[in-house]
């Protein structure tokens, strides 16, 4: 489910990514990046260009030393993550859940329909500390928003992220009843992305003033944009933007 909906701009794991890193040569970072990235025109150092144009021959790799500069050239890719926890969830929640590991950090990609049940289950399984809740905006994707919970278990010293995807205008149930800390975090996510959480006790803006128009961390929101009307009404000046 989640896989088909991933757009071209998605930095989350694709099963195909594993292929790009398999030739464990000196250069694959450059290649690996080029394959997975959106639009990487050329590698960092200019000296790398001739080498990158050629297929990986031993001579080509030896002649320009610059592309070999990255210390760990085997481009890391998300690997499937198997754990007792993940297996149990897969049994309970079926196909709506995938488990990945990237650079030693584990995360679940979960369908929106089961994410609340999963979070509640995880809290009961000992993930008693919700470190953070945030979102990422991918305007070109059909499911525009990644919502990410970072969870931690004091008992097992384990940190796991849970990620789900929603469409523009879709709402998520609030997780304030699971962890009290998500109250402000959900308010901030609402403030910055306009994502609404159903059942939140007091969902309103937290960092920006009430009555502000727009949600600044969306990608279409320019960095210098101000709500000129708000500035005019509340400060009595032209916004100057």
């Amino acid at each position, binding site marked *: 489910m989640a896989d088909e909906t991933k757009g071209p701009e998605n*930095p989350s794991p694709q099963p195909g990514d594993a292929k790009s890193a398999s030739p464990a040569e000196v250069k694959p970072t450059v290649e690996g990046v080029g394959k997975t*990235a959106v639009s*990487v025109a050329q590698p960092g150092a200019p000296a790398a260009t001739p080498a990158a144009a050629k297929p990986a021959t031993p001579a080509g790799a030896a002649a320009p030393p610059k592309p070999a500069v*990255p210390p760990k050239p085997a481009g890391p890719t998300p690997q499937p993550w198997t754990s007792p926890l993940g297996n149990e969830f897969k049994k309970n929640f079926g196909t709506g859940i995938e488990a990945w590991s990237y*650079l030693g950090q584990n995360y679940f990609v979960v369908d929106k329909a089961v994410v609340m049940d999963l979070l509640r289950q995880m809290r009961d399984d000992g993930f008693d500390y919700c470190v953070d809740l945030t979102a*990422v905006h991918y305007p070109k994707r059909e499911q525009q928003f990644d919502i990410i919970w970072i969870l931690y278990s004091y008992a097992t*010293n384990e940190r796991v992220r849970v990620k789900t995807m929603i469409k523009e205008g879709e709402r998520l149930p609030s997780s304030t009843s699971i962890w009290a*800390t998500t109250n402000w975090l959900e308010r901030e996510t609402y403030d910055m992305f306009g994502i609404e959480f159903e059942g939140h006790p007091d969902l309103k803006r937290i960092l920006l*003033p009430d009555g502000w128009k727009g949600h600044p961390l969306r990608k279409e929101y320019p960095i210098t944009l101000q709500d000129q009307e708000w500035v005019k009404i509340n400060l009595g000046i032209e916004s100057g933007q």
Partner: protein
Amino acid sequence: MSERFYDDVATAEQPGEKTFLDSSELVLNMGPQHPSTHGVLRVILKLDGEKVIGSECVIGYLHRGVEKIAENRTYAQFAPYVDRMDYVAAVSNALGYCEAVEKLLNTEAPPRAQYIRVILTELNRLASHHVWLGTHALDIGALTPLFYTFRDREEILKIYEKYCGARLTTHAFRIGGCIYETYEGFEKEVRDYCDFLLPKIDEYEELLTTNRIWCERTKGVGILNGDDCKALGVTGPVLRASGVKWDLRKAKPYSGYDKFEFEIPTGKNGDTYDRYLVRIEEMRQSVKIIRQAVDGLPEGPIMAKIPKVLKPPVGEVYHSIEAPKGELGYFIVSDGSTQPYRVRVRPPSFVNLQALDKMIKGQLVADVVAVIGTLDIVLGEVDR
């Protein structure tokens, strides 16, 4: 402050009779311009007489959109901005960010750089705790500690100035290590400072620990138990004072912290007084770490071999460190370009401030000041 005074007044009334001593609900606006809110925090208090029955924090006055700025800068360009979040602990912010990007690049700073980072970061923890102690005591009415702590913090800032030229927002580290080698006499100065500071910490304690006014104002005030802390996501000294022995430097060691020996001080009651004791003890432990790091400072390069133009591979990482205020985390999403696709900062002050409502409910207005001080928030980080 105990509730006895309030209760005496309340029971002095004739039952059922309205007098001028009768209390009624009052909404009081504290801040944003208020000396004891440590910046521009506004707290709307609902009072019944002197007693707080509800509160709401209004924040965002210092919002600068740091996370948005990050998306429009390269990885290296964004590094100085993080110093301006928690500006009394700029070095810690920088350490967290640099390590997060290094994690994304799947690299690590060389050992010498890690040791230099530990020395400077622990000095920064001392500086941050100095500011906390001075202002917290000042809020409660003890004027002297402010002068003592700022005098002693000055020496740390001098070391920073000699090391990298800046005192407050230092930008001391770069992605991949450190840019500056230690100056001549650095090790001696840091050692001397450790020797100088330990008796001074005793001096602060002499002023406060058994001071009757201090105890009256802090014992039993703003109690938060361990379970509440976990549910509210509270970290740092506030969590430890509630009896939870948890420190990221031990739980998930970074930057070579697993090589140093130190204790995690904890409290029992989770009140303002315990938080004070925990932070004081943390200062001693920081001194201990600094001494070990200076003694074991290895030779070698201070910068990892990373490309000039940083293009981390596509992916997401979360990395967090134990900042003076609690868990400071960076969640970075890379799309393979030179600019981060998204940088999320998990600010300890922001999350800890959420516990304010729970801590001051049922307390007196004067205690609100004490609790804001003990939470040790920096509004630059709350609002970002």
